[in-house]
């Protein structure tokens, strides 16, 4: 089971020069040069809460334009149980462990957001991964944690998972640590460091981790209720941690303009203390950085997406910026306005002053492009993934089953899609690839939703450098 055991190696899609002994790439630039074009994607696919009486699955999608099965789901790794709500997932090892001889990027840790069940998938055979281990919810609940979300590896082989609730789906959440044999090691942080939790990212050279806030699972699980926002049940803080100690050093309250801070990213260069967090409900991007003089982190609103009037709706509609990512070269911030139906890219070469480069209006409530290859695009762009070279942006359309049902009820009946835009980083432009469509509406058991996307050999939201 241990990654350090075999010399046979994961069957890598790329063939990069071995400048180092461990997984990943020595630098972000090395990832761009050596990673090669993404030919497969792993995509979280789910049936939870729909009419389809089947378990969620991990889809293996063919992204090789030379292949006969381009744009098709070529394999499905079914979960052993129904009702998981596969959502986010991550690797046992990434570039943060590139110094670890023998460790390989081979196992995917795939949590069930609703079930609190943890799955381990062996992806040594990149095209035919297999489920090798399941940690049942009861075992997770023993640590008074539930609702697993973000998975990152720790540089020396462990895995850290953000947990959004306690065993009752209430607050506080915390972090669960797995060892290199995928056994629960225990709770990572001392209890009581945080109340709400969601996404996190770490920058080990700066000895910092940043975490964000959604809400208690019992609050967000059933759907979005504005009353809960009014009662302060949704988050608006971000927490800066001492990465080595596992303790919160500083909490920043983003205020009313920073409601529901979800996806958070540091720049890829390990030297940087700059990063961005998308505050979904307020639909703003906050830039954060360490003020060396003051010896603490600061956060400032850097991009503001205005709510839009809808002729038939009661209130102006927020963009709902539910996902962001930073290109591997740290030049662009990409994001999705799920409710409006927009993907955008901003030049962040001066991170304090992001400059709008381009955007695409597709699907969602206001999108100009309403169909691709005759397939109606129901929901807006949601989870993003970018090629390592920054030239191809992909996205899926499901946010969370119960929230989909609220805002895009047809997503359950039609299934999600995966779309792609060609990016020109030189000119800062985006263009929809009209030839590209992966349709979860055609899955054998029935229409499925699609959420987070990963490449087999590292991507813009998986890899960290030490």
């Amino acid at each position, binding site marked *: 089971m241990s990654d350090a055991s075999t010399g046979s190696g994961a069957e890598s899609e790329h063939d990069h020069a071995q400048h180092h002994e461990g997984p990943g790439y020595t630098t972000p630039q090395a990832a761009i040069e050596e990673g090669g074009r993404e030919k497969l994607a792993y995509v979280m696919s789910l049936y939870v809460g729909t009419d389809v009486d089947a378990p969620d699955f991990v889809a293996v999608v063919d992204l090789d334009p030379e292949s006969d099965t381009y744009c098709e789901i070529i394999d499905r790794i079914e979960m052993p149980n129904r009702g*998981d709500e596969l959502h986010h997932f991550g690797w046992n090892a990434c570039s943060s462990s590139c110094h670890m001889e023998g460790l390989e990027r081979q196992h995917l840790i795939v949590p069930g957001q*609703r*079930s609190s069940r943890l799955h381990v998938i062996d992806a040594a055979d990149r095209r035919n991964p297999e489920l090798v281990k399941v940690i049942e919810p009861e075992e997770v609940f023993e640590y008074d944690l539930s609702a697993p979300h973000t998975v990152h590896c720790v540089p020396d082989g462990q895995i850290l998972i953000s947990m959004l609730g306690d065993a009752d789906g209430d607050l506080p959440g915390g972090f669960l640590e797995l060892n290199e044999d995928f056994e629960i090691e225990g709770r990572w942080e001392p209890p009581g460091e945080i109340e709400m939790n969601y996404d996190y990212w770490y920058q080990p050279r700066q000895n910092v981790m940043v975490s964000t806030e959604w809400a208690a699972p019992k609050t967000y699980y059933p759907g979005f209720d504005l009353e809960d926002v009014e009662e302060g049940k949704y988050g608006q803080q971000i927490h800066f941690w001492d990465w080595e100690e596992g303790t919160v050093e500083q909490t920043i309250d983003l205020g009313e303009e920073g409601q529901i801070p979800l996806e958070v990213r540091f720049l890829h260069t390990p030297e940087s203390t700059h990063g961005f967090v998308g505050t979904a409900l307020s639909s703003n991007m906050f830039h954060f950085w360490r003020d060396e003089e003051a010896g603490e982190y600061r956060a400032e609103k850097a991009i503001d997406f205005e709510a839009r009037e809808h002729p038939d*709706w009661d209130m102006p509609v927020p963009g709902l910026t539910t996902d962001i990512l930073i290109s591997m070269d740290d030049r662009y911030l990409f994001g999705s306005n799920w409710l409006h139906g927009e993907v955008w890219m901003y030049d962040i070469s001066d991170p304090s002053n992001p400059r709008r480069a381009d955007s695409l209006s597709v699907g969602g409530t206001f999108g100009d492009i309403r169909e691709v290859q005759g397939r109606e695009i129901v929901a807006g762009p949601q989870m993003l993934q970018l090629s390592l070279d920054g030239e191809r942006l992909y996205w899926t359309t499901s946010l969370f089953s119960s929230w989909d049902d609220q805002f895009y009820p047809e997503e359950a009946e039609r299934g999600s899609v995966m779309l792609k835009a060609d990016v020109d980083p030189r000119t800062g432009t985006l263009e929809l690839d009209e030839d590209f469509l992966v349709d979860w509406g055609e899955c054998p058991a029935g229409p499925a939703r699609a959420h987070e996307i990963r490449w087999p050999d590292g991507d813009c939201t998986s890899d960290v450098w030490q």
Partner: protein
Amino acid sequence: MASHEVRLEWPTGRTKTVTVREDETVLEAAGRDGIGLPYGCRTGACGTCTGRLLEAAGHESNDEQVLDVDDAFAYRRCQRALKDRHRADGYVLLCVAEPRADCRLAVGPSVHTELVENPWK
């Protein structure tokens, strides 16, 4: 162990009657009979398994009379996914609800979507 007849009704018109013991949840009993009801956390936190009480012990829910779901069920764990307004409207989480009376329930994935609406629309 006493048991109760629980009639499950889908919006499509499909119905199934399950005999549910007082020490098992409606979800467990349905699963035992091979009936695929939706569910998620199985701890009363997520609401995926929500059903709505239509009739209990011979009394129908209608405009004049709202049934008290707590007369029809005991709960293995607290129904944390439901707010007071949901309970008052007869919603019940089938993953933690053990019957105390014969009843009819609206089931299927469309029931949990009734808990919230699009606040901007």
